[in-house]
């Protein structure tokens, strides 16, 4: 692949506006709609059953209502014969078994249990706190590592790019009402790792170029670095996306949301490592002296 000469940095303003708009929409949606937390984080009961032949969901709802289960959500899960029953306000651990026997009392079609989950409200809250904490911890440690290996400005730029990716992915989940559970959280943290990987590769090239190209302005240098790494950025993203699309299509219902989170996150992550991190570096006024300490002034040796 020939090294391209795309004037990425000429698009800085448009890109900044685009990113800011996405972030604003995301934050707006998160603030007003919030996330649709899954069972892992809210607590409650979930029963997944498999029917021999596809049942009518309304019949199941009716059956459950007759037996005194009011606040239930009944949905198909992956296929018309798989049904998930969710109860948000379920406080007794035995509820899952009771619901199963109610469904089985129907008699006509055989019903088998696929899985049942019960998460206490307090545990759900703790998992939520742990998840948030993990995310912040990850960002903090990454920031320290980059500051040590590179320089403080790089650390700010790459962590800001990461926050950008996480916020927009979260915004996507909020805006499109996709359920957010433990596996999605794991995916989000993987996005942090992946997008960071991408950003570091670009930053690494910028650092290297500052050492080699002595007469180039930071603006041209950053642009050149992005162009040099563009081939690699796109190929890696492509191979990863191929795999993720396979997971999304053929991986089954259980990791559907997980692969969706990764898909969204990696598209955003690729975009941000090309545009956002470098853009921020320029905004922070990155200079050659940031990476290469100016030669120390010779100390006058007064000793005889």
């Amino acid at each position, binding site marked *: *692949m*020939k*090294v391209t000469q795309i004037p990425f940095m000429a698009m800085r303003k448009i890109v900044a506006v685009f990113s800011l708009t996405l972030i604003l929409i995301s934050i707006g949606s998160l603030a007003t709609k919030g996330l649709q937390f899954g069972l892992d984080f809210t607590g409650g009961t979930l029963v997944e059953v*498999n029917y021999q032949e596809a049942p009518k969901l309304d019949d199941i709802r009716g059956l459950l209502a007759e037996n005194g289960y009011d606040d239930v959500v009944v949905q198909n899960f992956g296929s018309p014969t798989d049904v998930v029953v969710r109860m948000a306000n379920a*406080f007794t*651990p*035995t509820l*899952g*078994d009771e619901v199963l026997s109610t469904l089985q009392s129907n008699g006509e079609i055989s019903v088998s*249990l*696929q*899985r*049942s*989950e*019960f998460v*206490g*409200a307090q*545990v759900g809250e703790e*998992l939520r706190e*742990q998840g948030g904490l*993990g995310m912040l*911890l*990850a960002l903090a*440690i*990454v920031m320290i*590592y980059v500051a040590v290996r590179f320089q403080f400005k790089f650390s700010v730029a790459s962590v800001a790019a990461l926050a950008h990716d996480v916020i927009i992915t979260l915004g996507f989940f909020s805006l499109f009402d996709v359920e957010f559970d*433990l*596996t999605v959280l*794991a995916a989000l*943290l*993987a996005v*942090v*790792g*992946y997008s*960071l*990987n*991408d950003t*570091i*590769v670009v930053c*690494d*090239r910028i650092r290297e170029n500052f050492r080699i190209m002595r007469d180039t302005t930071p603006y041209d240098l950053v642009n050149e670095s992005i162009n*040099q790494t563009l*081939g*690699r950025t796109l*190929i*890696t993203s492509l*191979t*990863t*996306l*191929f*795999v*993720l699309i396979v*997971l999304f299509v*053929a991986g*089954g219902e*259980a*990791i559907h949301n*997980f*692969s969706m989170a*990764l898909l969204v996150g990696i598209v955003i992550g690729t975009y941000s490592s090309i545009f956002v991190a470098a853009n921020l570096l320029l905004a922070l006024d990155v200079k050659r002296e940031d990476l290469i300490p100016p030669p120390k002034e010779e100390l006058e040796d007064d000793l005889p």
Partner: protein
Amino acid sequence: MLNKYPLWKYLLILLVLALGLLYAFPNLYPDDPALQLSTQKSTATVDERALEKARTALSQANIDLKEAELTSAGGTLRFNSGEDQLAAKPVVAAALGEDYVTALNLVPTTPEWLSSLGAGPAKLGLDLRGGVHFLLEVDTPAALKQRLEVTSSEMKAALRSDRIRYRSVDIAEGILSIRFLQQSDLDLAENLLTDEFSEYRFATRQVDTDYFLDVSFTEASKAEIESYALQQNLTTLRNRVNELGVAEPLVQRQGSNRIVVELPGVQDTAAAKRIIGATANLEFHLEAGLDTTGSDLETLTFRDGSGRSAQLERDIIITGDSVSDASSSFDENGRPQVNISLDAKGGKQMSKVTRAAVGRNMAVVFIEHKSRSRFVEQEDGSLEEVRRSYSEKGIISLATIQTTLGNSFRITGLDSPRESSELALLLRAGALAAPIYFVEERTIGPSLGAENIKLGVGSAQIGLLVVMLFMLVYYKVFGIFANVSLALNIILLMAFMSLLSATLTLPGIAGIVLTMGMAVDANVLIFSRIKEELANGTPSQQAIHSGFNRAFTTIFDANITTLLVAVILFAVGTGPVKGFAVTLSLGILTSMFTAIVVTRAQVNLVYGGRKNKKLYI
């Protein structure tokens, strides 16, 4: 010379790869569905005779047995299919009788020469093999309260034997208050009790004309009781799980007051929960005599629903904790009964009390600690869970003591054979030191587990194929190098998973699939560097050399940061997230090795040391 590896480097790489292959190999052998036979009783052993019984019963029921063998832990019966295994369980259990425990299990079919090298397949998580996961919380405040109650009877006995007069003893909010009428009594009591009960903190106060001695736990003793309660509960739960007959169960402490229980293969969660969560215990009390005064009395009803009640002495002779063995059977009239043997200390105590009480009535009291949670609306409108624990006590039998009771006796008055056998099991396994309740429960059916494996492995294969095709088309000969490295990377990853006996979960498989996508990244970085060098007119040997060298720092920095994130994921995550973190971090490490070292070796082998050969990249 450029791009030549010394011979030892090639050999080292070959050695690593050979070891990787060896240890990844057992994963190709599918597990056999099996029944695990074991026994908890000293009177029964799993031997050839037991296996023969099982064989006969199975052939009578027309179930094919693949193999029966004796192992160090008991016996294993292997079957050809999961259906045979499920059908065989009740048949074998009936043939062997109550003394044996039969459990569903999957046993590896690793050939002996491999397992003698310590190789074995990776463990499958519950989401891939089916089973139950429980998270239990130990009610430590209840344990403290129980201890305080025991202490209060001990203190009363001590005060009585020293003839120090007290008015009343109350327990409220973790403080035991003894009320005296005289300052002198208070002083005497304080001297006596401070000596004997050093684990408590004592304080005195005066309200109107009454003098109080307040007894509370010191921080150290509180922590000790809490950790004892947790430890004791862990032991008890382990015993109970063993009694349930589950192969490879996990009972583990999590955090300061939680216990994780994982039972692979178990499907009847209701039964499992009843046994694990049961807090039943027994207490033996004497019926109150005429001289027993008000505060030492306790009126309890019978459990048979007849509405009768009896007045009992509050003092406990012994509790179920002193039971060393228990078994259920039927009495002469065919009613269920439990035969109990006491340990030495309990037996001595029992005979001491009953010797002085021949002719009086003794009650067996059944206690269950339960908890009820309610949701209370807070001022800010949010719901707060309030849990209140309480105990239910009922008399199961009240019988006249005919003679001094010793180490073994029986109790009757139970509702059903199921109740008597569960009570016997609980008495054998020990009582829980503090009540526990379920805070999380996940059950995965075996069919879902099998489906998860199928989908996970299927998408991994397709993913691998797509990536390999792409690399081949884009990088030609170098694409082949990268693909060989990628395949070896997956083998090494599986070998590590097996060696560390890490648990493979569904998100774990997703982690492997993701690693495949990312693992080629290092090679992509190297190859695009080489291409750049070539475009600058560098001779091919020089281009390969500096391509690898200059890409190295980038690869290193990029992978280390991702590894940091994976480690954090492992540290804060639970269950599925942990599984993902394990494969991701192992995958990063193995991919760095294969993508840098193994790819370099191949490149060197093909192109190294030749002059300006054209590179197909």
